């Protein structure tokens, strides 16, 4: 499944990109479904994240009850202190809008802080896909691997 990178335009030239004004980020849309409802959110493919995390203000919109949820503290980049993260099962769905749609259930973390992007990390997401990050083409190719627990719709 092809995931085009999202262009992010900067007013100042980016020195590390040879003066370009545009960064390209592997951001994709993910549908999350809880016990009560479903929502569509952006998230960043992040190989540096152990877990898949979304902001916790999303949980009640899905009907996800975090009051008794297992929790840990996670270290987020640029945060001086670890952040509370509570885990719950949701259904995840991704699609390219053309030929490929995948759906599976996973434990994801809900963090009590603002995120620039929700994070698609190893547990719950990247563990189920082999991903090729094509820098020149500015796209990622996702292929479900042998551990993928869901279905292709």
């Amino acid at each position, binding site marked *: 499944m092809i995931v*085009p990178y*999202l*262009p*992010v*335009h*900067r*007013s*100042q030239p980016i020195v590390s990109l040879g003066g370009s004004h545009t*960064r390209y*980020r592997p951001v994709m*849309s993910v549908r999350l479904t809880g016990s009560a*409802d*479903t*929502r*569509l*959110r*952006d998230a960043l493919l*992040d190989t*540096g*994240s152990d877990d898949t995390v979304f*902001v916790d*203000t*999303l949980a009640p*919109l899905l009907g996800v009850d975090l009051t008794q949820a297992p929790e840990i503290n*996670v*270290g987020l*980049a*640029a*945060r*001086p*202190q*670890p952040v509370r993260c509570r885990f719950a099962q949701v259904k995840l769905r991704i*699609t*390219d*809008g*053309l030929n490929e749609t995948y759906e599976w259930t996973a434990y994801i973390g809900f963090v009590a802080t*603002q*995120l*620039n*992007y929700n994070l698609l990390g190893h547990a719950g997401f990247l563990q189920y896909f082999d991903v090729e990050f094509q820098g020149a083409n500015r796209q990622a190719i996702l292929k479900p691997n042998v551990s993928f627990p869901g279905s292709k719709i």
Partner: protein
Amino acid sequence: MDMHIFQQNRANFPPDKLAQFVGQYVAWNPEGTGILASDVDQVALENAVRSAGYDPSDILVSFVPNPNESNVGGGGLAT
């Protein structure tokens, strides 16, 4: 929502228009050509989406980060 068309349109959304929403959540129209509503609070944003006549479950919501900031990940906090 046609995700393929949506992605193409959103990639071409004028950056100067998007810049107005830095630090807020935005609700994109299903075509990816415009923003239905914006707010710093996702619940308030959903109310605005409903007021605009749309079902929040059909609408992509994204946070608009400061484009002039560079995101650098890491393995967590060094202690």
